[in-house]
């Protein structure tokens, strides 16, 4: 599903070149749950942004569903993000002036679904995260854990192939974090791939694979070795 070969990323500012990610190979199959760990500033978020087509890589090959994304136009990239990728962010990224229903509706609008189809998907997603009854509420009326559930509902409403989660429990207490992890595992169990960036080794250990990024170098470990 996701194949990166000799992929690298460098940032150029004036005459200074900063190598954010050194060339690496990585393949993730449909249905996998992959954790990405590493210290702050190691390049985890850059990796996730490239995987999510939010940023372009500098060199190498990135194929999503067998397609070389370097050839994509902005429109095609946007369509791919919309159909195949769901995002979950550390700070939830809900739009405060929209109610929960409309927040979940957002990606479906760009998919050009009719209102009936959108309504069905929104309600299904809200039910899956256990907040269907609060669809008319606004993000500020929810706890952090509930807001992250809404963000997850928004990510899954379009039935994407993969969810990219950037520190999804970073702003939550341990109990809430546990609930979110449980929800992500349920989603993964239903067949959606998950790539999760985290600082938390315990949470990372719940994934089937772990990828470590350190100083821009990406390497893969088996579960037990990685957490050691």
């Amino acid at each position, binding site marked *: 599903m996701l194949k990166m070969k000799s992929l690298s990323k460098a940032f150029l500012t004036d005459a200074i070149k900063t190598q954010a990610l050194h060339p690496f190979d990585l393949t993730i199959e449909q249905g996998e749950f992959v954790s990405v760990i590493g210290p702050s500033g190691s390049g985890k*978020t850059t990796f996730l*942004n490239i995987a*999510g087509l*939010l*940023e372009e890589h500098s060199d190498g090959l990135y194929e999503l569903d067998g397609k070389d994304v370097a050839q994509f136009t*902005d*429109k095609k990239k*946007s*369509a791919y*993000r*919309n*159909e195949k990728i769901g*995002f979950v*962010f550390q*700070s939830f*990224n809900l*739009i405060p*002036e*929209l109610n929960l229903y409309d927040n979940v509706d*957002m*990606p479906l*609008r*760009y*998919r*050009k679904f009719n209102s009936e189809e959108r309504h069905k998907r929104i309600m299904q997603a809200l039910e899956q995260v256990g907040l269907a009854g609060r669809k008319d509420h606004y993000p500020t009326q929810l706890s952090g854990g509930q807001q992250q559930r809404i963000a997850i509902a*928004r990510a899954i409403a*379009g039935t994407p192939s993969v969810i990219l989660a950037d520190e999804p429990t970073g702003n939550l207490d341990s109990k809430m974090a546990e609930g979110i992890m449980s929800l992500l595992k349920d989603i993964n169990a239903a067949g959606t791939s998950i790539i999760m960036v985290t600082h938390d080794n315990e949470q990372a250990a719940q994934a089937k694979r772990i990828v470590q990024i350190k100083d821009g170098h990406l390497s893969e470990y088996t579960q037990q070795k990685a957490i050691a």
Partner: protein
Amino acid sequence: MYFYYFKLALLSLRKTPLLTLLMVAMIAIGIGATMTTYTISYMMSKDPIPNKSANLYQVQLDSLNYEFADNDILPNTIAYQDVQALLKSDIPKNHVALGAIQTEIGPIDNPSIERQTLEVRTATSDFFAMFEVPFLHGGGWSEQDGKDAAQVAVLSKETNGWLFNGENSVGRTFYFGKDTYRVIGVLDDWNPLPKYYELSYAAFKKPNGVFIPFNTQIKNEFLTLKLISNYCWKEPDDQSFAALLTSECMWIIFWVELSNAQDRDQYQAFIDNHAKEQQALGRFPRRIFNKLLPLKEYLTDEEIVSDDSKMAVWLAALFLLVCLLNCMSLMIAKFDAKAGEIGLRRAVGASQNDIIKQFAIELSVIGLAGGLLGLLFAKLGLMAAANTYHYLHSGLMQMNSQLLMSTVMLAVVSSLLFGLYPITKASRMQPSSQLKSL
């Protein structure tokens, strides 16, 4: 999708009410100022009688013995003895000799209404047909009435309202100076703008209230010098009215309606022949140089649209530009503040085009609100102008439907035009760099 964008626009505008108000007010003030000055300039310069302006000509004859202004420019008026000759031609579809007098007018049977001094237009009988004057009651005088110098009058709707309380006054009489005149017609609303048949100084004055036959003026020896343009290059033999009529004094405006180019050529030949005949009799000392000045050319030559009004429009447009540039900086600030939302929308699948459409709709809403408020400002500006320049034609200070539409369109289009840069800038933001700012 556009309804969705519209809903988002309203939410966004509600989220930052002060900024929204500032942007709308800035557009509205610029639009209001521009449209106030443009309306006046537009109303001054529009074709007052579009269906036949190409067929109307002012007759100008060079019967002078000196160069008038420069070699090609002639007075707008001609001498009475020439009018007499020109009225005999059957080439024009219509021809009209125009004079103007001032007299006291009042009702006979209603002493509670005080007499007023009014300007009276005197005209030959073709006036009403030639200038397509609409009647509410009755009609104009016949050619015979004109020849007979009948004491009849046509009243404007306003004058009829004042004299006869707006009733059908045809057949009724009123005081006209020391005499009584009979009403034979009452006009419907008729406010040509500019009053193209007048001399340029009166083009934007209020419409005439009373009309009487030209020959009635002549027979009764009415003359109000301040209302006519009188070029007396050769003094009359004496101070009498009869001497004025046989003099070289040029004081009568003369218009003809010529149906086609052939008629025009024929008529040109006719007036040239007249001049030659007169020259043989000792008149027209300098040359045979007579003009049929088309109406539109007359309006341009007489500078009925002054450069001052055009300059005011340019200055107002410059002011609008400054307002829009200010508005543009607010738009940039607004869209910068929405970077997080833009990043999120891009992440969940919005393309650059989707972002452009969303913000274009938002700016259109701002432009529309600015346009509507600007319309109100323009109306207030025109009301203030009408109040200050009350002696001018009220039609100058009124927006027609075309101008109303243009005002709103101008606001929307200029908002979008000046929003182009902020919108494009916003749509090109790197989504990944903005996601953490929501």
